[in-house]
């Protein structure tokens, strides 16, 4: 390879072609994806996150929760995602269009969180359990005590105070910081809000019983 300019141009072309193909190609397909307007509910889906939850996604991102949790449900039949209750359908690109930095994750040391909010809705103690888990951890989940403040109990117990089974120190209460509150708000909104048409499985091909009539 003697010709320097041709060599370097070839390298540039190689990097450029893969960038053009993968990045620009997917950008062309995904970046102008509009929300889906459902006429029955007269609403766009997905809805944008509320402010508290939107800030919570940044907390999720900077703590690196994506190191152990995914937020992408695989289609039914491909893995046990549906059987584990993680979602009735697979996640599609439209679910993420209003997330500034989707936290898809690449590792499942813990459960998938894409529909955590939906599972939590069925459980009235969900928020309290979430805060307890984040504060104290468990055998398999790290603790994040720095997301909570221990404050002196003056007068009434704060309505945000954690109700810990082990009981706190007398005269003290554990209160979530703003970061913990936004993180919890974010996790409790995570949901597949709508059954998009592209998420429905393809109909099975009809059995080919007729003899071929066209040539």
């Amino acid at each position, binding site marked *: 390879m*003697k010709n320097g300019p041709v060599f370097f141009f070839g390298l540039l072309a190689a990097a450029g072609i893969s960038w053009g193909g993968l990045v620009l190609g997917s950008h062309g397909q995904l970046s102008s994806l509009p929300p889906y307007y459902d006429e029955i509910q007269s609403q766009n889906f997905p809805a944008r996150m509320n402010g508290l939850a939107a800030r919570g996604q940044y907390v999720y991102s900077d703590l690196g929760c994506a190191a152990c949790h995914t937020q992408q449900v695989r289609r039914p039949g491909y893995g046990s995602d549906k059987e584990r209750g993680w979602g009735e359908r*697979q996640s599609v690109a439209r679910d993420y269009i209003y997330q500034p930095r989707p936290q898809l994750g690449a590792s499942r040391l813990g459960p998938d969180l894409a529909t955590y909010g939906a599972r939590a809705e069925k459980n009235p103690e969900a928020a309290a359990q979430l805060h307890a888990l984040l504060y104290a951890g468990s055998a398999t989940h790290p603790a994040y005590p720095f997301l909570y403040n221990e404050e002196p109990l003056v007068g009434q117990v704060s309505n945000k105070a954690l109700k810990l089974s082990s009981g706190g120190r007398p005269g003290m209460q554990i209160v979530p910081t703003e970061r913990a509150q936004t993180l919890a708000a974010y996790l409790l909104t995570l949901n597949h809000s709508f059954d998009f048409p592209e998420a429905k499985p393809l109909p099975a091909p009809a059995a080919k019983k007729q003899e071929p009539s066209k040539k």
Partner: protein
Amino acid sequence: MSNSPTNAASAEVTTIDTTARGPLLLLVGAALVWLVISGILALIASIQLHSPHFLADCSWLTHGRTQALRETAFIYGWAANAGLAVALWVLGRLGGNPLRALNWVVVGGVFWNLGLAGGMAGIAGGYMTSFSFFQLPAGIQPLMLLAYAAIALSGILAWGGRRTDGTYAAQWFAAAGLFVFPWLFSSAQLVLLWAPVRGTAQAVAAGWFAQGAWTLWLAPLALAGAYYIVPKSAGRVVPGYEFAPLSFWTLVFLGAWTGGRHLIGGPVPAWVPTMAVAAGSMLIFHYAVTLANLRIASAGTGTAVRYIRFGVWAYFMVGVVELIACFRGPALSVQFTFLATALEQLGLYGALSMMFFGAIYYMVPRLTGNPWSSAALASGHRIGVILGVSLLVLSLAAAGWIQGQALLDPQVSFAQIAERIRTPLLGATAAQLLLLAANLILLVNFCKTACACAKSASQPALFRQPASLEASA
């Protein structure tokens, strides 16, 4: 035909080496320091996997941040510095002239490492970008880009100012590793940080960068050292060399197309992971030719070539197993498990790092003109690293296999999975401890060697000359 050591010190150390001594030793020293730092972080992260409450009180070392710190220190600290040193040295040697713009290399090296230190503090403080292989805080990345360009300039000038018209494979890989990275890095910064694409297109772009960094940046830097050292150590012409150009261009054109390999079944268009399979299949040609070319490493003698031998075989294995893992069937068991981590470690540690170790062991005596300060420490490092990498990859693979099978069974809870994989993860922690100890040994050996050089030790290095060497560059 014996390989008796000859006193060919003067022939092996030329002005190319003496002029480049300071800057390249700076880069190698920085690389080894970052390797040890990454090792400490890897040990902490590994402990946290089976004992989640380890250091949980410290927000800087919460598990997610520790993983980002470990990965960043390894790639941008160890691999980048080592790769730059190897590439510049190879281009200088094969170019036949002393390296130019070495002041730029020093300035670039200092700012790269300072920027990295700042970036690591940023990650610990919660400013990481959350993209794999790309965790450095957004603010520091342009500085890293400029620092890299300053260092790479010397290599590109060495290519342009070479004495011979023709070029060797080692030069192509070195030039590719130096030249492509700024484009890769800046394009990724553009679409992920400055003008982010929407939604899951970010995942595709991040995958493109991560695979591009492996195939277009780090692997070429390692192969540059391998293609230079192996024929010289073995004293033979590279077999099948006529396929090397095609192998090189296959890697360069197809490497980044495997960017979708972690997005199988994910919320991206199906053609993205399918392209990864297609590109991965064609890339087997590159891996096969590399192995065919460099298998003569088994005939080589000396410390350096033993590392490279291990590295080349690991590199081939990574190519094959990565392809198998891209197919949707095997991906069901591999995706999201420690099997993927094991494969990544096989590539980064087993292939890349071993080739860099070999290049460092070969390069440093020729730069300093002195032998390595302690042969015992060198052996200790070699045994420690080979055992450590093997144990690490096997432990993670075992954990990943158990985890993968358990994840497919919806009746198995995550607490049960954690219980089942605890023992292999303890093995992985032991491996990280062994690797840290071995790399500390190498750092100590390097410091002693470099300090001896600074004090002008009187003992010249003895270089092995294979008796049947036809040509030498």
